[in-house]
């Protein structure tokens, strides 16, 4: 047999440069898509505005720094595990139904991520723009479809007293893990104010203050059987 016949790159050098290039590009595309668990390249319908992306990345970095300096912070589970692929995901809200007293926001996660990763942390970032003086009580409900997928059930409810404009964060890790566990990929957040004095959220929301969920996930490791 000719030298190197069994070798992985055998024969590539003998091809014309154009053919070599095409083969290498096809191999790179297939390798990237398969390691991102994507069946094909995504078609982007509405890219996130630069303002929203920069604000979100800035907020997350400040959040990480706050955690880093606070001594009582428990061991940060997002410390990278050698060899296991980790993900940071930014999911921006999609507007849902709203009334004079309540607003719904939807956050979608792809099936590929839901099926191949475990959620380590997930944080909801909301920006309050205060419509007036005093304190504004707001109820934040995390909703998820019931097992039949027909109705929405309340996964958790938190009451906030909003006193000034600015960002607030809420831990939604358990709710997202439970969603993925049920095979669902949509987290719905309902914000309700007690009287129609205008929702502190949407009064002044702008592109760079749009709500988002920042999640950290890790590839599920398949159980390797050690054969002795």
């Amino acid at each position, binding site marked *: 047999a000719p030298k190197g016949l069994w070798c992985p790159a055998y024969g590539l050098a003998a091809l014309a440069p154009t053919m070599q290039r095409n083969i290498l590009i096809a191999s790179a595309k297939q390798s990237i898509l398969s390691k991102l668990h994507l069946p094909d390249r995504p078609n982007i319908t509405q890219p996130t505005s630069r303002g929203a992306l920069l604000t979100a990345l800035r907020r997350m970095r400040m959040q990480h720094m706050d955690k880093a300096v606070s001594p009582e912070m428990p061991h940060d589970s997002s410390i990278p595990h050698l060899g296991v692929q980790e993900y940071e995901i*930014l999911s921006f809200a999609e507007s849902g139904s709203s009334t004079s007293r309540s607003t719904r926001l939807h956050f979608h996660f792809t099936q590929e991520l839901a099926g191949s990763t475990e959620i380590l942390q997930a944080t909801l970032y909301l920006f309050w723009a205060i419509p007036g003086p005093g304190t504004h009580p707001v109820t934040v409900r995390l909703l998820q479809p019931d097992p039949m997928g027909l109705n929405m059930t309340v996964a958790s409810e938190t009451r906030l007293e909003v006193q000034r404009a600015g960002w607030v964060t809420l831990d939604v890790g358990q709710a997202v893990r439970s969603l993925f566990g049920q095979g669902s990929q949509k987290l719905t957040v309902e914000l309700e104010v007690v009287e129609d004095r205008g929702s502190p959220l949407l009064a002044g929301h702008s592109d760079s203050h749009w709500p988002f969920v920042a999640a950290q996930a890790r590839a599920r490791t398949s159980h390797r059987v050690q054969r002795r």
Partner: protein
Amino acid sequence: GIDCSGDSGMCCRKEFFIDFKEIGWEDWIIQPRGYHMNYCAGLCPLHMAGIPGLASSFHTAVLNLIKANNADAAVDSCCVPTQRRPLSLLYYDRDSNIVKTDIPDMIVDACGCT
């Protein structure tokens, strides 16, 4: 590892850069602009089998015995990656979420003979 230069036929690493704009992926991959994939090419004649990249071990001793006593029977030695590093990507997924991840073993840094 050795980088390919000129027409050396020996096992070496060839630089190969993929510009995401050239392949029409720049709309969904936010960062980086391209990917230094690189790959290994060249022959591994028997006297090069197992270097660089194979720590000296019992395996090496056996291999040397095979070489000395029965050169024809020794199997092919291949030019393969001996060092690789991750590719960091920031991209849009199918729901237009923004995802950052490091894909392991995507960039070939060095090549050697098995």
